[in-house]
């Protein structure tokens, strides 16, 4: 019983060490889309990027294999913020505009793969980070 209690307390302790899950960003369907009430002034996020499509294509042209044949689908920019990983001290790492993008590239045989979702983080017109996937536990979409 003593051992059971130790294991139970450890699991509770571990869960307690991780911050409560934040609403996450989803792409496309409603599943996984989370929102958070903003207490921040809209100005903190700056102006939305206008030339995001060009910026993203340029960004990926050096990052992806066979980038010249890549196909893109963009969603309009949304306000978001991202926290630092706990190993880096937590706190807000970035606040700006996020563009959800689907990128399909051909495989080495030329077969076009299923588009991969990326979340591209902007500060003004500048790309600051690209996160593969539809959601990330440290990223919060702001309505």
């Amino acid at each position: 019983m003593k051992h059971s209690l130790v294991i139970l307390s450890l699991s509770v302790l571990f869960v307690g060490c991780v911050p409560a899950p934040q609403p996450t960003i989803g792409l496309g369907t409603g599943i996984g889309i989370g929102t958070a009430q903003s207490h921040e002034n809209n100005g903190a996020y700056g102006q939305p990027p206008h030339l995001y499509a060009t910026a993203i294509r340029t960004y990926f042209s050096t990052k992806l294999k066979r980038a010249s044949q890549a196909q893109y689908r963009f969603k309009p920019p949304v306000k978001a913020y991202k926290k630092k990983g706990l190993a880096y001290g937590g706190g807000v790492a970035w606040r700006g505009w996020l563009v959800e993008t689907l990128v399909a590239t051909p495989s080495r045989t030329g077969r076009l793969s299923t588009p991969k979702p990326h979340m591209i983080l902007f500060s003004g017109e500048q790309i600051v980070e690209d996160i593969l996937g539809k959601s990330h536990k440290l990223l919060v979409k702001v309505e």
Partner: protein
Amino acid sequence: MANFNTHFTVAAGASALVSATLLSMEVVSPQEAVVAFAIGTLGGLLPDVDSAHSKSIKVGFNVLSLLITIMLIFVKSSTYSLIEMLIMSVLVFSGIRYAFLGFFRKISKHRGMFHTIPVAVIWAIVIAILCQWFFDLNSLISWVYGVMICLGYLVHLTLDELYSVDLGNRRMKKSSGTALKFGMFKNRQQQVHTAIIYAMIPILFALAPDMEMIQSALFSKDAWLNFKDIILPYDGRWFFH
């Protein structure tokens, strides 16, 4: 029961094979493939964390503690001073090498709960959580590392189980059935431990990164086509592409 060298070699071989396949399928980058290989190999040593008198586990944990300490130094090098990094290194190294190992040896019994399949699954989820919440990695890579540790862990359990067959005398050794198992059910205490372990899985899943990317990268029709593409030379020419 397989010895340290066997566990290390087989886990490293399996991890190399899987990480090379993931690299070839363009699921991971070359750097990520190296980390995946290292994590898979470590996973192959983890189940013996409960072994009380294993010298080889001490060696394994020296390496593990050193790796984690070095990784944290890299993470904190831009913000911490040398003295802060030195203090952190001593604390982290001794914390993992002595406190963590000592604690688990105290609360666990060799070939107990640590040699079960659900614990391998828990390690996968915990590693995925740590990668995303602590090190800010994306969901795909977090889960790739989680899957790699689980793979190494299961390789270890499978090896232990295979070594419980005495091929010479054609009989099962006493240790048969103690390594690769779904839980322990012999007495009330073991049943409670097993129940707690199973109860932890959904709790941890709630904190884990999104699994859609790993499912799509490894277990989808597209992944299968991707895998088929890399088995043989795609242009029919061997070695001269």
